[in-house]
C-alpha cells in the first residue's frame, strides 16, 4: 500500500508518511518585504548606535567616531520614520493589502482575534481561524510596533532640535520651527529634555522586547503549523492546507472576508503536494 493521501484539516496534524495537499498562498508583495528588511536593519542599527551614544563603550581615536555613530543613528532613524509613513499609506490606501481592514472592530475581526489568541495560549490545540490569511492578532501586534516607532519619531526629533542654535539650520529656519511646533509638547508631557531622553531610551527596550516576541511568534507558527510562515518574508508565499476555510468556495472574495489581497490571490493559488 502506498501512503495515504488526504487533504488534511489544518487542525489535525499529519501522521508520519502521510501526503498532505497544500496550496501556495501569496501573502506579502515585494514592497512589504522590502519595508520589512529595511526596518530590521534600521531597528538593529538604531538600537546599537543609540546604546553607544548613551555610553561610548569603546574608543577609537582619530576616526571621528562619535560623529559617525550619531550620523548613522540619524540616517537609520530617518529611514525608519519614512518606512512608517509608507506603511501608514499602505494601511489606508493600498489596493490589495489594506491592513486597516484587520483593525476595524467588526464582528469577524473580533472572532478571528479571539481565535488567533486562543490558538497561541492553547498551544495550537485549538485552531479555528483561517491561517492562510493575515489575522487581526498579528495586525494589532504590528500596530503596537508602529506606535512605538512614532513615539521614537517625536522624542527623537525633539532631542535632535534640542541641539540646534536658535532657529538656524543648514536648510533654513522653517526646519527647526517645524520641529519645535510638532515636538515641543513632548518636553511638557515627559518632564524636560531629560524626561524626553528617558522615554526615547526606554521605548528602545520595549521595541527590542517586541522583536524577541515577533521572531518567536513567527518561528512558532512555522514549526507548529507547518505552513512556512517565515518564508513569507523571503518569497512572499506561505503554504496552507487545501481544505482550510476560504479555499473550497469558488468565489473567495464572497466569503465575507474583509482582506482583499489574500482572497484575490487565493483564486490563483497553486495546488501542490507536500510530503511531510
Amino acid at each position, binding site marked *: 500500500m502506498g501512503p495515504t493521501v488526504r487533504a488534511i484539516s489544518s487542525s*489535525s*496534524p499529519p*501522521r*508520519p*508518511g502521510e501526503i498532505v495537499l497544500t496550496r501556495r498562498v501569496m501573502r506579502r508583495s515585494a514592497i512589504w518585504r522590502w519595508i520589512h528588511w529595511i526596518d530590521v536593519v534600521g531597528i538593529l542599527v538604531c538600537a546599537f548606535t543609540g546604546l553607544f551614544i*548613551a*555610553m*561610548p563603550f569603546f*574608543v*577609537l*581615536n*582619530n*576616526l*571621528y*567616531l*562619535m*560623529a559617525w*555613530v550619531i550620523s548613522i543613528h540619524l540616517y537609520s532613524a530617518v529611514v525608519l520614520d519614512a518606512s512608517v509613513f509608507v506603511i501608514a499609506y499602505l494601511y489606508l490606501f493600498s489596493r490589495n493589502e489594506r491592513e486597516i481592514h484587520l483593525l476595524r472592530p467588526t464582528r469577524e475581526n473580533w472572532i478571528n482575534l479571539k481565535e488567533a489568541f486562543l490558538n*497561541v495560549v492553547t*498551544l*495550537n*490545540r485549538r485552531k479555528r481561524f483561517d491561517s492562510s490569511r493575515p489575522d487581526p492578532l498579528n495586525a494589532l501586534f504590528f500596530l503596537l510596533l508602529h506606535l512605538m516607532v512614532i513615539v521614537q519619531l517625536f522624542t527623537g526629533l525633539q532631542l535632535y532640535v*534640542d*541641539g540646534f*542654535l*536658535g532657529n*538656524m539650520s*543648514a536648510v533654513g*529656519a522653517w526646519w527647526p520651527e517645524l520641529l519645535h511646533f510638532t515636538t*515641543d509638547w513632548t*518636553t511638557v508631557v515627559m*518632564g*524636560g*529634555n*531629560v524626561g524626553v*531622553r*528617558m522615554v526615547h*531610551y*526606554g521605548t*528602545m*527596550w*520595549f521595541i*527590542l*522586547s517586541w522583536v*524577541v*516576541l515577533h521572531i*518567536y511568534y513567527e518561528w*512558532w507558527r512555522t*514549526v*507548529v503549523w507547518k505552513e512556512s510562515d517565515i518564508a513569507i518574508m523571503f518569497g512572499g508565499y506561505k503554504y496552507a492546507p487545501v481544505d482550510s476555510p476560504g479555499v473550497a468556495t469558488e468565489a473567495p472574495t464572497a466569503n465575507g472576508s474583509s482582506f482583499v489581497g489574500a482572497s484575490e490571490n487565493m483564486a490563483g493559488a497553486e495546488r501542490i503536494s507536500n510530503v511531510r
Partner: protein
Amino acid sequence: MDRRALLTGDFSLEPAPKQPSAPPINVVDEGFRRQCEARLAEMRAADALPGFDLRGVLARNKLSRRRFLQWSAGITAALGLPSVFTPQVAEAAELLGRVPVIWIEGQSCTGNTEAFLRASAPTVSELILQSLALQYHETVMAGAGFQAEETLASAAKQYAGKYVLVIEGSIPTGANGGYATNGASAQKFVDRVASLSANAAAVIAAGSCASFGGIPAASPNPTGATRVSDVVSGVPVINIPACPMNPDNFVGTILHFVLTGQWPATDSLLRPTWAFGTLIHNSCPRRAHFDAGEYVQNWGDEAAQSNFCLYKMGCKGPYTYNNCPSIGYNENTSWPIRAGHGCIGCSQPAFWDQLAFERPLATQIPGPGIFGLGLQSSVDKFGAGLVAVAGVGVAVHAVASGIARSKSRRSESGGDDDSETSVEP
C-alpha cells in the same frame, strides 16, 4: 542683525563681485538704535536714586575706563547686539541707578550674593551689583531688625510699580509656608513674595533655587519648596538660573531693560534666550573630542591632561542650556569644563536629581528613579528585564508547545509514540 546671514555669507578670499541690489550683511537697525537712545534720554532725565555711583566705585577699585569699556563691549556681544551699541550699553550701565531693586532671600545658601561679593578681584559686573540701587538686601545692608523692615516698607511704597524684585532661593510651601520666615516680624517668605511681587515692575529669580526650586526642591523635597513662577502671577518673571547664577547674565538682563525698556525674550522656562539660547555642548571648546570619540576615561589620565571630552566622566553639557562657554565666570577666568570637570547641568530644572553627578546618565547612580537605581540606569535595568521576561515567556511557550504537540500525536496514533518505525495498524 540677522545672524543667519553669517551662514550664507561669502567667505571667499577673492573680492566678491559687486551686487548693487543685494542688501549688506552687517546692517545696524537704525530705528532700534534711535529707540534705545530715546529710552536712555528718558532714563537720564529721571532722578538718580541714592547709593549708586558707578564712576566712583570703579575709581575706588582701580578699574580703568578702558577696562569698563572692554566689559561693555563684552556684554554688548553677549546680548547679541552689534558692536556699535557699545557706547549705549556703557551709558545704560551708568544709568542702572535709576532702577530701584529690592532683593529678598528665601531657602538659599546666599551663593548668588556670594558669587559677586566674595571675588578676590572684583569684576565690573560684581561692582555694579554691589552698588545697584539696592533698597533692601539682607546680606549687604547696614540696617537690621525693625529698622530694616521699615526701609523695606517705605521703599515698596515709594517705588510701587517701578522696583525690580529679585528673589534668591526657593519658596517653601509645606507646613503652610512655615519653613522660612523673613525679617524681624517673621513674615512667611511665601507671603512676602506674594505681597512684594504684586507691586513690582518685574520679578527676577536669581539662581536655580528661585528659578526651578533647585537643591531645596530636590527629592524628597521635605519643605515643599517651589519656584518663583509658581507663586508669582500677573508680573513678568525672568529666571536667571545656574548655581550660582553668572553675575554677567543678571546685569545683562537689567541692562537690556534699561537700554530698551523691555525685558529680554525668554524661552519656555522663562530664561533669557540671549544667555540660555544654546546648549553648552554646542559651543563647548572640547566638542571636537566628543565627535572624534576621544574621551577622558579616568580622572588624571593622559586624555584628561590632553583636555579630551568629559562625557564619560559625567559631563551634562549635552542637556544644559547656558552661555558658560562664551562668557565664563569671573570675567571669563574659567568655568567647569575649562577647569577640567564636567558640567553638572546646574541651570536646568531638577538638576540635583537628574544631572548633578559625576557619571553619565547611562551608569548606575544612587538617586530617584524606579528601584532607586537612578534615572537611565533604572530604564536600562527595566528594559533588560523586559527583554529577559519576553525571552523567558518565549521559552516557556515553546517548551509547552512541544509537549502539547507530542501529546496530541501520541493520542492520535493510539497512544503509540510517533517515530517513523511505528507500524501502521
